[in-house]
């Protein structure tokens, strides 16, 4: 335990000192241009959801009947600074003011090295804590969706449980700069400190919202209250086995992107640090985004995988299958954007446990409208309905069939 404790402290100290060092270094850099995005998002929320997962329940919305009306949607700062001509530091500082461990925390912190291409081949390398190239929605500062308040279930899940803490490198062939129109990229990463990835989707299933778990934060444990740590902290190394992902992408700039990725965290399902287990999580992901004139976007993503854990109390390995896909259509009309998305959510036991079965079969409709009513101001309206079956609700004395409806009206100030 003490070794684990030291490991955690070590990672935290390294990331925090990086966070402090970055502005100091860039302030000293002579030719730096620093860039800062700040957003304050305040919302009025009306929902019929009971017991949000943010407060230890099985509600799939960020908000619930006891936590709605006036809410802080999010406050974040994304800071970007060149350390050298080709190395940038990125830092995202976040708060949702919903009772997480740290009132302010980091969601991403990484260095990106982008050497100039001297031929049609280009390398890019990231080092630190960041998102893998899976989401085709979360394109804005703060890894925010450009199309809706709440991201699709797949990308919501990544925001909750996943972060690449390690190194990622990509090699692109820039055909669009060589007269061929298409850019082809290969990407690969090695990472650690994300072993609990899988516990949230096992306990609660897929959800649809816009809350990203901070690197030093967590989410309340829903069923396991026996340990001294009441929150799941996703960003720990437990089994000392690095994971990897490999992916490929073809892009016709500003027109069409198609990508696929295989993810394997190579977790040891028997390993534990006393608070969390290491989960063996593997999945395949694919997505495409098509943009056409005057300003329409279609996005589809799909994920299919499984996760396994072997609790130490003699039970056999539990294995959960999960699958989700969504299709999104969005159009811009002057200062107005309208988006509609359909999500399919599914989890099912591949190998059951004695006391707990996870099963989710649900669908969701998300409708969004946004209006840029000032150069720095946006109004967002979102209506979200998730309905279906979530069997583990019965363990909390709820009916397994549910229909959650959430309406949100957000005012965003961007600086």
């Amino acid at each position, binding site marked *: 335990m003490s070794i684990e404790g030291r490991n955690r402290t070590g990672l935290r100290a390294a990331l925090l000192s990086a966070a402090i060092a970055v502005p100091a270094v860039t302030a000293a850099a002579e030719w730096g241009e620093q860039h800062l995005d700040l957003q304050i998002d305040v919302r009025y929320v009306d929902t019929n959801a009971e017991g949000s997962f943010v407060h230890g329940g099985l509600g799939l919305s960020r908000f619930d009947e006891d936590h709605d009306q006036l809410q802080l949607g999010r406050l974040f700062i994304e800071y970007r600074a060149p350390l050298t001509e080709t190395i940038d530091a990125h830092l995202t500082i976040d708060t949702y003011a919903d009772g997480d461990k740290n009132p302010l925390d980091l969601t991403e912190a990484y260095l990106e090295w982008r050497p100039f291409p*001297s031929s049609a081949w280009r390398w890019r390398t990231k080092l630190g804590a960041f998102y893998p190239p899976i989401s085709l929605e979360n394109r*804005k500062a703060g890894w925010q969706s450009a199309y809706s308040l709440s991201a699709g279930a797949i990308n919501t899940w990544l925001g909750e449980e996943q972060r690449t803490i390690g190194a990622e490198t990509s090699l692109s062939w820039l055909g669009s700069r060589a007269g061929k129109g298409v*850019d082809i990229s290969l990407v690969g990463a090695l990472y650690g400190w994300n072993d609990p990835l899988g516990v949230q989707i096992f306990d609660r299933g897929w959800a649809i919202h816009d809350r990203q778990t901070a690197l030093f934060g967590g989410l309340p444990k829903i069923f396991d209250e026996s340990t001294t740590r009441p929150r799941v902290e996703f960003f720990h190394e437990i089994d000392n086995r690095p994971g990897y992902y490999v992916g490929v992408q073809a892009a016709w700039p500003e027109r069409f992107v198609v990508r696929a990725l295989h993810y394997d965290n190579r977790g040891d399902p028997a390993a534990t640090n006393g608070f969390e287990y290491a989960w063996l999580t593997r999945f395949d992901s694919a997505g495409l985004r098509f943009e056409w004139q005057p300003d329409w976007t279609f996005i589809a993503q799909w994920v299919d995988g499984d996760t396994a854990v072997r609790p130490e109390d003699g039970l056999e390995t539990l294995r959960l299958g999960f699958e989700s896909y969504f299709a999104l259509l969005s159009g811009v009309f002057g200062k107005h954007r309208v988006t509609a998305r359909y999500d399919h959510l599914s989890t099912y036991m591949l190998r059951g446990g004695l006391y707990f079965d996870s099963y989710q079969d649900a669908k969701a409709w998300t409708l969004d409208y946004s209006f840029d009513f000032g150069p720095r101001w946006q109004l967002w309206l979102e209506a979200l309905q998730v309905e279906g079956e979530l069997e583990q609700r019965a363990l909390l004395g709820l009916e397994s069939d549910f229909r959650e409806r959430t309406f949100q009206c957000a005012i965003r100030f961007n600086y």
Partner: protein
Amino acid sequence: MLRIGYLAGVLMAPLALCLWAAAGGAAVLRVDVLDRDGAPVNDVVIVATPRHAPDTPALTAPSHAVMDQIERQFVPRILVIRTGTPVDFPNSDNIAHQVYSFSPAKRFQLSLYRGRVYPPLVFDKAGLVVIGCNIHDNMLGYIYVTSSPYFGKTDIHGTLYLEGLVGGDYAVSAWSPRFNEPEDQILRDVQVAADANPLLTLRLTQPLSPEPRVKPAKAYRNEY
């Protein structure tokens, strides 16, 4: 009186120009570019290269050109220049750009930070130079460098007038990044008689790629 004088001036000026052109034996070649359906195609680079030894000096000496960056786009998106022309790359955005090209005709990289002035780059080799930004992958620009003095881009009517041509044989080329023609560009041989004003219509055989987005995507993060 003043009014009549003004009118006379307005009428006389083109006449004088015509007389001057006739005296010099110069021709004006009109080029029209139409797509498969007969609709005009704008922003097509047209170059007329004399087959004979170019015994006339350039009408316009290589002077100076500008490729700006405005709202994360190269402006103009397509620039045609003569070999030897210096090109300025200002940055009108309030964010940094890193402009590069690895095209054989001109390899360069230029970090453009806000509020800095950089010396112009001289493009001394003919060919197509594709320009990108290492920070914003969606930015794509083209500098078409030609050694011929007769060049330009078609207007919104799909038309370009190449003026001051001397009589002789010309190879006329048309190029646009939106072309999907079997060859990269369209080539035609044209015989231009002195004092004539020939008309050349180029019709595409393949559909055009869509126009680039009018309004560039907002500040999206790099994805790969």
